[in-house]
């Protein structure tokens, strides 16, 4: 009798990017953060990226945990400060592709000032913002992105603060690449992440993502699947849309796509140009400031 061999299921192609010894992860069923990580890692595969030269920096919160699950040089910093940490990392070691992966509260409430200044300077950082409209890790408090009238634990009768329109904010501050997708748009998101990783300059992708546990439950919006259906139904792709028209408002379509893609001198490029023109031969250019 011939022996039969069982074919072992091939490993998930993104497994090589994950710290599998840290699984199970902390994210809830239906959460979109994992979907975005899948898109990010698939973008790395498709780019055939040098994984030793990619660093991921996160702040604090559910999305802040991304750094901890990625098997790359990864830094889980303090609340709101992923961008200034990433700025120091990039300026000390320009050879790295530095990705900032964090949430809407982290990047735009406590970290808002750092975001606008890094965008203004055009530091070559790739910022992926998971926007779930709420503070998830701390239990569902109002965020700078929470829609008006939505229930949060600290706005128990409905939020009455106007939220930020993140693409408009990013463009106004100087971001050279601005896009928005939802976790329903996995192919588009993967493609846009690829595009972002290949280019230079301060780049920003907002990823609308379900939070069934702490946002949707209180706002009677169902589970993760319901959010996917809602994204599918309400999203309207408008590449190149003026960011002033991308605010998320009740009863209106969610505008997704790539809105901004321009070139502007980078911080490091401008620094080198200024110093070498003013100092001539006295200027000492060192690429990576590695201490030996």
């Amino acid at each position, binding site marked *: 009798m011939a022996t039969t061999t069982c074919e072992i299921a091939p490993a998930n192609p993104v497994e090589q990017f994950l710290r599998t010894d840290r699984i199970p992860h902390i994210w809830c069923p239906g959460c979109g953060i994992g979907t975005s990580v899948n898109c990010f890692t698939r973008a790395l595969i498709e780019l055939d990226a040098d994984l*030793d030269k990619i660093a991921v920096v996160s702040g604090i919160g559910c999305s802040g945990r991304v750094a901890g699950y990625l098997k790359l*040089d*990864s830094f889980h910093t303090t609340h709101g400060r992923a961008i*200034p940490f990433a700025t120091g990392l990039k*300026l*000390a070691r320009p050879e790295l592709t530095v990705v900032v992966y964090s949430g809407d509260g982290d990047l735009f409430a406590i970290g808002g000032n750092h975001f606008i200044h890094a965008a203004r300077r055009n530091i070559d950082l790739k910022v992926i913002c998971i926007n779930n409209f709420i503070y998830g890790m701390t239990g569902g408090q109002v965020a700078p992105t929470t829609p008006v009238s939505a229930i949060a634990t600290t706005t128990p009768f409905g939020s009455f603060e106007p939220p930020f329109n993140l693409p408009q904010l990013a463009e106004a501050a100087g971001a050279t690449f601005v896009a928005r997708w939802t976790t329903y748009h996995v192919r588009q998101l993967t493609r846009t992440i690829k595009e972002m990783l290949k280019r230079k300059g301060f780049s920003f992708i907002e990823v609308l993502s379900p939070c069934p546990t702490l946002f949707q439950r209180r706002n009677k919006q169902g589970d993760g699947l319901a959010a996917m259906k809602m994204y599918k139904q309400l999203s309207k792709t408008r590449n190149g849309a003026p960011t002033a028209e991308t605010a998320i408002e009740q009863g209106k379509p969610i505008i997704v796509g790539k809105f901004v893609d321009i070139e502007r001198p980078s911080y490091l490029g401008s620094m080198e140009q200024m110093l070498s023109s003013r100092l001539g031969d006295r200027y000492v250019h*060192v690429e*990576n*400031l590695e201490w030996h």
Partner: protein
Amino acid sequence: MITADPKGVLTGAHFIDGDQACTEGCLAAGARFAAGYPITPSTEVVERFARRIPTVGGRFIQMEDELASSIAILGAVWGGAKAFTVTSGPGFSLMMEHLGLAVMTETPCVIVNVQRGGPSTGLPTLPGQADMMQARWGSHGDYEIIALSPQSPQECFDLSITAFNLSEQFRVPVLFMMDEVVGHMTEKVIIPPAEEIEIYPRRLTVKPPEEYLPYAVDGDLVPEMVHAGMGYRFHITGLTHDERGYPAMNPEAQDKLIRRLKDKILENADRIITLEEEGLDSADVVVVSYGITARVAQRAIELARAKGLKVGKLRLVTVWPFPEQKIRDLAGRVRAFVVPELNLGQIVREVERCAAGQARVISVPHAGGSVHRPEQILERIEEAAK
């Protein structure tokens, strides 16, 4: 130890203030990255760095605030640089967040605080030494720290190199506690040739990635480091973590980590602490001081000796970790300690704690804004000698 990179060493005799001498010390120590935010009376340190670094080979960035400066340097260190930031009182308060992160992640770096009068905006242009307990306890959580206090521009140069060396040796942020008078005082500063400056190299691992654990230690309690981009694909977090650097949310991991972070400093206190001692063997009264106040105290000690009093001098070059054993030993054989400082009694509490009732401890408080008059200190020495 290795010798300094000559590119950063401005060998020669200079007539510069303490702030600028500090910059030269940092450059000589190998700092090639600084991030700062303007604040009186410390700004001259980064102004000089911004002017000097393009011809040495490195980068400076003026960040949007001190929260950003104090974490940008940590990013730079993990990217491979030696890095520092500079501030004064209000900015030092903002930096406490990342002092904690640097302690927790064991990131070697130097934070310079040119102290002014506080709290809050206080006295921006006038001296104080009232951040000494903040230096010890400013971050939340339990930890040990190293803090040095220079008394002259020459020491601003010499000790900033020491600060970097200690930070690399023990992988701990080192606080460089200057004050406005030392920072703005101009004196002769001798910068030696690079080959005479000893540098403690970064403790980079030689292990291959598959054998390396970011927070594993053997023997001396200080783990080996790697930089981003070296191929180790490591993880660093401000959360309590295990040897792999992974979050570990349990009391056992907390106990193991926090004890090691404390023990690596406490068990090496003898190697870390530098004191200037003079006339202690025959002293009835010992004046304990640091920073600019030590120079005023010197005059008071001389005046007291001229009156026939037996006065010893103990200057805390290292303020943290506190020289507990030294104070205990002295307390058993001297009559009293006199502790002048530009605050209403901070380090004097440590002296009292260590003296434990075996000798009198007399504070010479000053709320800041100027230095003491020597006579104020002399008066208390005379009282102590009675």
